């Protein structure tokens, strides 16, 4: 076991994959500086800076994956992946199916997601619901360094198309630019889930399979289901609710597609009350999907969702209120407990 930061753990997973397999390469904007340790280990032929041409370099990832490489294409923020949407919804996710399973696309698209640090409505989205809607796409978002490293290794070894989402609030690099070593006049510590930002990572590293949720806390009265930073907000809320006598469980989905339907259904049946905490939009996404799967599984559970309902505002107080914060989770949990 080694203690690592979240971003460090992702690069550890990527580095292990690059060391084991010379067909693993990575490209994206500024990756040579951002991932300078990988550049130093593997040289400039395997770590490539791109121009700001998301559509071309993401589509190029699909082509390269079809021709024998295992590219990890990095898109700075998932919001910018919208400029390359066709590569995701019309190519990476499709070609394996079009080939009748004869031509897999072992491509990982890596993108940063999420907010809480005041970056406005165009730099803080998660969009995992929309990504997960497309058949042929695996979508993961780790909440802790061990999952971050293991899921990245699994994503690269997987023979299909994977979107690997890393949450910026857990990733040291972004916050370091905006606070930390740049200015000591802002303090993100009140926002930062310590358990997600740093933690033990197993060595040697093993790939983590997709579609396996992780029970972060067991309970019998209420199930909080989430992914990414939401998991940590849920753990905070669960501690408070349990003190109030509501025995609260927390399920970390880890992958949004495929969903661990059995784990969701089992925990919902066990608790009878479910709150989905989703840092993505409320419409057409993960929270509605979970409601549907519970209905289809015939699990009778009281259900609430805490998700993003507006364009994310810039001003800090407005932003925090728009995101699934702990107060909103507590309110939903308490309401269900009275039913």
């Amino acid at each position, binding site marked *: 076991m080694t203690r690592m930061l979240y971003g460090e753990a992702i690069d550890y997973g990527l580095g292990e994959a*690059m060391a084991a397999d010379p067909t693993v390469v990575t490209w994206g904007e500024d990756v*040579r500086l951002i991932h*300078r340790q990988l550049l130093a280990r593997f*040289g*400039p*032929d395997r770590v490539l800076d791109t*121009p700001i*041409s998301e559509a071309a370099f993401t589509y190029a990832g699909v082509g390269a994956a079809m021709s024998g490489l295992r590219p990890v294409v990095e898109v700075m923020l998932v919001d910018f992946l919208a400029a390359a949407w066709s590569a995701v919804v019309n190519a990476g996710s499709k070609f394996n199916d079009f080939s009748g399973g004869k031509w897999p696309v072992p491509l990982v698209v890596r993108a940063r997601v999420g907010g809480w640090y005041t970056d406005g409505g165009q730099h803080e989205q998660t969009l995992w619901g929309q990504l997960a809607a497309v058949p042929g796409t695996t979508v993961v978002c780790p909440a802790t360094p061990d999952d971050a490293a293991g899921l990245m290794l699994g994503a690269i070894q997987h023979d299909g198309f994977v979107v690997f989402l890393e949450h910026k609030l857990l990733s040291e690099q972004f916050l370091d630019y905006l606070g930390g070593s740049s*200015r000591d006049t802002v303090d993100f510590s009140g926002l930062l889930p310590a358990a997600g930002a740093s933690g033990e990572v197993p060595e040697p590293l093993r790939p983590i399979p997709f579609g396996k949720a992780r029970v972060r806390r067991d309970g019998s009265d209420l199930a909080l289901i989430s992914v990414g930073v939401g998991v940590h907000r849920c753990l905070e809320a669960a501690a408070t609710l349990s003190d109030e006598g509501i025995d609260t469980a927390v399920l970390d989905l880890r992958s949004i597609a495929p969903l661990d339907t059995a784990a969701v259904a089992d925990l919902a049946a066990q608790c009878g009350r479910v709150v989905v905490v989703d840092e993505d939009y409320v419409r057409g996404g993960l929270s509605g999907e979970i409601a549907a799967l519970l209905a289809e599984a015939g699990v009778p559970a009281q259900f609430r969702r805490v998700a993003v309902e507006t364009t994310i505002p810039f*001003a800090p107080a407005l932003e925090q209120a728009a995101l699934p914060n702990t107060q909103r989770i507590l309110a939903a949990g308490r309401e269900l407990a009275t039913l």
Partner: protein
Amino acid sequence: MTVPVSDGYACSMAKRQAFDPVQAYRTMMRIRLVEEALVKAWAAGYVPGEYHSGIGEEGINAGVVMHLSDEDAMALDHRGTGPLIARGADPLALMLEVMGSEEGMNAGRAGHMHLMDPELHAAADGIVGSSGPLAVGHAIALQRLHPGRVAIAFHGEAAANQGMMMEAYNLAAAWKLPVVFVCKDNRWSITTASADVTGGNLVARAASFGLATAEARGERVDEVYAAAGKLIKRARKGRGPGFLFVTCHRPGGHFEGDPIVRITKDPITQSADLVRELRTGVQGRERGATRDTIRGVSEIVARSSRAMRDWTGVARKDPLRRARKAIPEPTARYIEGTESEAIGRAAATARRKTGSRSAFAPDGDRT
């Protein structure tokens, strides 16, 4: 509310053909003061999130915007403060927005990357490359609704590699739209040198799309004014779109907190840290061939010295220094006095109204 940069500024400048160096200096000075106030406020913790300053672009902003009036439209990138101030935006409302106040020009919903004002017909967008097609759209509407008006797209040299930007060049030419693309070449895209990731020459690229091209040095506002004037005049007359390529500098780095700037400001400690960090990254781990490792490490070292080279001696090319020389000393001092007074007061008010952002906390219980 808009604040004219001088009385009658908005209408008089468009009609006047001759370059007014006093007006240019006042505009540039106001932009610089607002930018400096925001940079200081960022360091002091009053600006939450990122801030991309336009320090170094004042000559471009003033030289282009001095031609605009009435319904002329502007599509801005992530460095939108300068063009908005030049166009007459209220410095206090803008600063409040950047500081995340609900009293800001966009009610706290936007932040610095999405500043917009329908009265000024100007809007910023943080998606690199989108200012091109957005300006094309403004131009289509202007052509029908306000003939003789022009749309300006401000974009960086790195944005010229974005697909939608090149599509916009083509659309503008194919439809002969009244749009001028202003390409600000500071040679960098965050920490990547644009030359390393750009094929060919951008002026030739634009010309090959059928855009009329002109070039200027951004530290010479008069040169920018003249070159922009030619292209804008053509576009107004319905003779088609233009591409203005202007060189400039980015002395503050990509954004406040730019890691490369930290290296260049404190090269000894920062590079020592960098080398140590790279060494631990390499040691004790399986890696590629030694030759690749050496190439990788030298790439990083070369990049920081390139950045250092680019950003030292930038003072000589300060557009304000040049512009000041073109006007009488007492006039310059008068402008500096009145503008510092006004912007200083606005900055103090903005700080008082927002309060420091130091105590970030979830659930909006921040005070």
